[in-house]
């Protein structure tokens, strides 16, 4: 069943059409949720919630935008609402896309003379760093760098300008770099402590 036909039938409440739409998009939505929340239980809940909202609203879909864009917009909003509730901050989407609003911390000098990261970035450390990003940065980073969306598509999904999408992505990458450096420094410090303890024990 083609997607357009499935949409039309789902708007009439056809069970098999709902399932068809779910099967067409579930992997991408689940992967997005998984990258955003970093755990399977949360991703499962959010995937179900995103599709539930989609099917509740499907009668209002008029095809002004691509169905997948519409679905991802719903999914991203569901995830962002969840992350905001978790962090205890209630912010609007407009605030989410404003530069320097989310972290609330002092402006950082990203261009410090740190050691180069290349070659030392592994999946585990990067995933940990992504999890620490503010929700808005994280959403743009996941959509652009992991899922491969273009800035114009992200702007539509996130309801922001293309310039904002680029700005958020840049800040997200810079913040990730900083988090990865912090992790590297912490690791080096722990290694030194361990080495020092070992040499002390030998005396």
């Amino acid at each position, binding site marked *: 069943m083609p997607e357009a036909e499935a949409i039309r039938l789902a708007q009439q409440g056809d069970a*098999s059409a709902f399932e068809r739409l779910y099967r067409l998009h579930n992997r991408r939505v689940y992967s997005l949720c998984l990258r955003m929340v970093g755990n399977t239980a949360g991703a499962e809940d959010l995937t179900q919630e995103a599709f*539930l909202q989609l099917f509740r609203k499907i009668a209002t879909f008029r095809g002004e935008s691509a169905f997948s864009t519409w679905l991802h917009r719903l999914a991203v909003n569901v995830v962002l609402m969840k992350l905001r509730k978790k962090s205890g901050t209630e912010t609007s989407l407009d605030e989410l896309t404003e530069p320097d609003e989310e972290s609330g911390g002092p402006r950082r000098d*990203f*261009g410090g003379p*740190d050691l180069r990261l290349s070659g030392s970035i592994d*999946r585990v450390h990067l995933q940990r760093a992504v999890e620490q990003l503010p929700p808005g940065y994280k959403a743009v980073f996941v959509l652009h760098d992991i899922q*491969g969306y273009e800035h114009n598509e992200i702007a539509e999904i996130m309801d922001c300008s293309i310039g904002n999408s*680029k700005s958020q992505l*840049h800040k997200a990458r810079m913040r990730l770099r900083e988090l990865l450096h912090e992790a590297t420094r912490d690791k080096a410090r722990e290694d030194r402590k361990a080495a020092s303890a070992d040499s002390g024990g030998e005396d």
Partner: protein
Amino acid sequence: MATMTCKAFLNRLQLWMDDNPPPDAEAHLRNCPNCRNVIADLNAIHSEAQSWNTEEVEPPAHIWTSLRSQLEQEGLIRDQRSVLPQPSNSGWFSGWFAGLPRPALAGAYLVLLIAVAFGLSRPIDKRVNEARWLEGTEVSTSPLSAQLAAEQVSFASFNDSNPVVTASLNKNLAIVDNYITLCEKSVQEEPQNEVARDYLYEAYQQKADLLAQMTERGENNR
């Protein structure tokens, strides 16, 4: 060409981060190892993240099951009959019920039909006496629930002899049973909701139809 500072370079970085840098930025990069490190780090982060994109993850099957139940509960899925097997004239179906204990199944079907008819007659009572109807809702559905349990026992003996049919049969029965459970819950929560009651009796009717089709096929193939 004027020399660009590191601060100016980093401030403008987002403008061309996915394109080639302008000549003055390129000139700065050639002479500034720190900014070269920044660019190398950002590229490394981007490359690592891109490699994740090829690994879309299959969500667990229970998400759709839960989602579907929720959709049914909210009445968003309206066509329940589409999930039931349609009668077919093809040969593969005709051999399904040759080994069924037909007298028992036919008897069970008759009892179920009588019970459904009894249940469907209750709304008339309601017009006469609302209290009697509300009290009778449970009474009228309980024989049906008991009959459903008896049906499952009948099919259990059938399962052992024909595993292919068993899988299909159990799946369809599970779907109908799930629907019946949801409808019963709705009626319990809103006993005065006529739509909920209609759905419940329709669910029982669907199960009766399913059993009737099976019995008929079995008789035809004796």
